[in-house]
């Protein structure tokens, strides 16, 4: 176990594990030349052939584009995490979860089969749950992790139903085979349901309003997790899903309207809320919600330029947001605080981090010369080309971007340039593996801003071509001439600067405003949980009340009533049967059994009752033997013997149990009636069954094949270990589990481990 190893060994191993994302990144990058020419590779493996489910992977422009972001950011975050976690006792576990999450995410973007996509989707949910709850000693972490799991897990289930309906409508699980059927699909009766279900999946994963609330709470995760999951990968999963299904489901009015409205609301909501926060990571979380909203809104578009805008903004956002999350982690790590009002003047003591923050924030603000500016320009261009509510969309985008600019200012100017902070500890620059990631990711924001055309040709256009094969290549450039997008950019920057200047009033107003809202989505979630817990409590009190007598009563009563009713409904007189009088041995055995039954009921001693029960069982075993079923008799006899032994041991440990009890006569009568009813029911059923003709084909099959096929003459045993050995396997697994679980229960009672 890694936790027992020396810290230096752990760190070395963790650092070496960064090779995994690096090599995967290089492998993905090697596909870029094919991406540019629009070629794709598809690998298919048999998975569940009987259900026609294949494990298929598609390597096209879109999946490679996402893979590059996932592995690229993953590499720097791995390097960063080594120093961030240095000395943490569970470092090994962290890196296992981290890389497992990364691989699940890669599986998600490469999967072509929708069932495989769903499985990878759930794996990302599961590992993100483990990662958000990494600091599991903290109550807040556990609560946030559970919230993220429940919200995104519910979305995952919706997605599963969605892809199943999609298969019923199109006849295929392969996404790449669905696009040609898109036109028919839009008139299919399932189309509405499919759309809603896939939207729920995407919106919960990508934190769209009103499912956004889990994302800010997930900031309980360590900083590198937020940088990876909550900016660059996991939350982009929903965006990926929408992009992937864009050619299949997109283009209808309901698709466009839903995405534009939900995206616009989310974007404005996220940006406004961000301004009301004071914790660095919370600010970043809400700006992430804003970014995801913008992407969702743009995916509502039909034109190629809006898709180009989605991919460009996605790249811009992944770069600056993961850098900023890492920087927030560095600040927290080095200064001990994330509260923005405590921070100041960090540029002097942390020059490299400051450079990274400078680049990332200006890209976020969308300043000219930065990649963010190009992202914003292309975004406006995309929206202006739209037919569905372009007015609403443009207002939302300008407003959200303006707020974003102000937030970028708040994030950079205050902590790094102004005044002197009050820190719990003296501040020094972080170790190089920590600042190198943000510096490179932020630096790419500058570099891509210088060579936008290269990015457009290599990454953006291939990704768009994968989902929209027809259409002209859109050129990315720093300056497109004086046009509406440029004008909108100017307006955005003006709004941003204005908001920055009144940030303090705005912060208080917004914080007060959100305080005043009586009912939020987060409270709705808590309410639902409370109702579920209360229902479970009531139900447990009624059904699982711990009384064995009660359980048995319910089981027997349901048997008598349900079986009796259905038997009575189909009753057509008893079949003819002849009662053969028992011979002497059988008659004696019946007498023994009857005597045992009377002893069980009448005995005042529990031990005597158990022994009498054993006698009864043994008597029944003898009857089996008498009728020629030695296997059954043998097993029955042995089971009875062991039962008596084990129950006696258990009884010895109980306090002397009085059989008199306090059960009132009324209850005893009820029990007796039920016992008689059960007996009559079983007898009636047996008589009816054995009176009718029996189908002997199975018996004959086993009798004929037992020796030929399975080299055995004892049919019972051959059935157990050969013909039906899978059943036996299930049974022995139950036996093994019961043995170990019982062992654990007995030991736990004493508080031993």
């Amino acid at each position, binding site marked *: 176990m890694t936790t027992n190893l020396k810290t230096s060994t752990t760190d070395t191993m963790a650092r070496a594990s960064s090779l995994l994302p690096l090599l995967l990144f290089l492998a993905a990058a090697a596909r870029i030349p094919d991406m540019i020419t629009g070629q794709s590779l598809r690998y298919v493996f048999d998975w569940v052939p009987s259900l026609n489910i294949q494990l298929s992977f598609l390597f096209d422009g879109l999946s490679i584009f996402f893979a590059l972001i996932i592995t690229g950011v993953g590499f720097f975050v791995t390097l960063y995490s080594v120093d961030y976690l240095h000395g943490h006792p569970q470092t090994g576990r962290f890196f296992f979860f981290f890389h497992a999450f990364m691989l699940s995410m890669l599986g998600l973007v490469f999967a072509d089969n929708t069932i495989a996509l769903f499985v990878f989707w759930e794996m990302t949910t599961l590992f993100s749950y483990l990662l958000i709850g990494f600091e599991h000693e903290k109550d807040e972490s556990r609560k946030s992790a559970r919230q993220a799991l429940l919200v995104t897990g519910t979305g995952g289930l919706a997605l599963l139903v969605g892809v199943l309906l999609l298969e019923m409508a199109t006849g295929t699980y392969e996404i790449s085979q669905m696009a040609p059927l898109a036109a028919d699909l839009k008139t299919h009766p399932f189309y509405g349901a499919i759309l809603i279900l896939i939207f729920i999946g995407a919106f919960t994963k990508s934190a769209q309003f009103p499912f956004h609330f889990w994302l800010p709470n997930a900031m309980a995760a360590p900083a590198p997790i937020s940088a990876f999951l909550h900016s660059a990968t996991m939350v982009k999963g929903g965006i990926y899903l929408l992009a992937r299904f864009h050619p299949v489901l997109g283009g209808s009015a309901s698709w466009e309207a839903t995405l534009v409205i939900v995206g616009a609301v989310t974007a404005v909501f996220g940006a406004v809320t961000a301004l009301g926060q004071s914790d660095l990571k919370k600010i970043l979380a809400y700006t992430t919600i804003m970014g995801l909203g913008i992407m969702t809104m743009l995916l509502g578009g039909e034109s190629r330029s809006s898709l180009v805008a989605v991919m460009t903004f996605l790249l811009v956002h992944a770069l600056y947001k993961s850098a900023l999350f890492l920087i927030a982690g560095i600040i927290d790590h080095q200064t001990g605080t994330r509260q923005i009002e405590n921070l100041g003047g960090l540029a002097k003591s942390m020059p490299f981090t400051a450079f990274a923050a400078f680049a990332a924030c200006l890209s976020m603000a969308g300043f000219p010369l930065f990649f963010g500016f190009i992202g914003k320009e292309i975004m406006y261009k995309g929206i202006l080309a739209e037919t569905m509510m372009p007015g609403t969309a443009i207002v939302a985008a300008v407003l959200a971007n303006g707020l974003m600019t102000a937030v970028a200012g708040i994030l950079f100017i205050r902590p790094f340039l102004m005044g002197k902070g009050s820190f719990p500890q003296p501040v020094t620059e972080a170790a190089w593996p920590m600042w190198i990631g943000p510096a490179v990711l932020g630096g790419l924001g500058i570099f891509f801003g210088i060579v936008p055309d290269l990015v457009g040709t290599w990454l953006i256009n291939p990704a768009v071509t994968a989902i929209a094969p027809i259409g002209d290549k859109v050129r990315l450039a720093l300056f497109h001439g004086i046009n509406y997008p440029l004008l909108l950019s100017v307006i955005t920057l003006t709004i941003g600067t204005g908001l920055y200047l009144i940030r303090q009033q705005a912060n208080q107003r917004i914080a007060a405003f959100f305080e005043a809202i009586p009912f939020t989505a987060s409270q709705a979630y808590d309410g639902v949980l409370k109702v579920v817990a209360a229902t479970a409590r009531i139900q447990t009190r009624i059904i699982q009340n711990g009384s064995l007598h009660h359980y048995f009563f319910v089981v027997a009563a349901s048997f008598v009533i349900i079986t009796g009713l259905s038997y009575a409904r189909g009753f057509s007189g008893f079949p003819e049967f002849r009662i053969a009088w028992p011979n002497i041995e059988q008659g004696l055995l019946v007498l023994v059994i009857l005597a045992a039954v009377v002893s069980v009921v009448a005995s005042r001693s529990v031990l005597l009752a158990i022994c009498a029960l054993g006698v009864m069982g043994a008597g029944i075993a003898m009857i089996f033997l008498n009728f020629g079923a*030695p*296997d059954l008799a*043998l*097993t029955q006899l*042995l*089971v009875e*013997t*062991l039962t008596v*032994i*084990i129950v006696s*041991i*258990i009884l*010895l*440990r109980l306090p002397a149990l009085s059989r008199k009890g306090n059960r009132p006569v009324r209850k005893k009568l009820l029990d007796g009636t039920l016992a008689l009813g059960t007996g009559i029911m079983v007898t009636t059923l047996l008589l009816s069954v054995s009176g009718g003709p029996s189908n002997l084909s199975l018996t004959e099959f086993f009798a004929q094949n037992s020796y030929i*096929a*399975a*080299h*055995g*003459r*004892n049919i*019972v*045993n*051959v059935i*157990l*270990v*050969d013909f039906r*050995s*899978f059943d*036996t*396997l299930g049974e*022995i*697994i139950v*036996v*093994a589990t*019961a*043995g*170990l679980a*019982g*062992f654990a229960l*007995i*030991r736990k*009672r*004493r508080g031993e481990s």
Partner: protein
Amino acid sequence: MKPSLILRTATRLLVSMILVFSVYLLLRGHNSPGGGFSGALVAATGFAMYIMAEGTASMRRALRIDPSRMIVFGMILALGSGLFSVIAGNPFLTGIWWTVTTVGDSKIALGTPFFFDIGVFAIVLGAILTLLLALEEDLEKD
């Protein structure tokens, strides 16, 4: 309190026979009544007798291995005998047989279901012994 002399003496005589009988049941199971499950129950009865007569510490010493290991061993054997046919290209748990030797007219065959049955034996015996020992040890502590 020491168990009675009669029980202890009888146990000494009986347990070995019971155990031999359990193995006999296990081996003959394919052609006559018996098999892994009933064999394991017989063995468990024998061990239960021994525990009552000699106590759990003595039982553990005599067993040499922890009964929970027996469960694991049985599980490996049962799953392994099933996987064997997968390697041979048949569905999971298909019986595969070899003729070991021919005596006169009759062939003596050995197959994967035999190992599967031994797995059943080990799991059932292991599970019962795990519970019995835990219960008895718990009792001895009081």
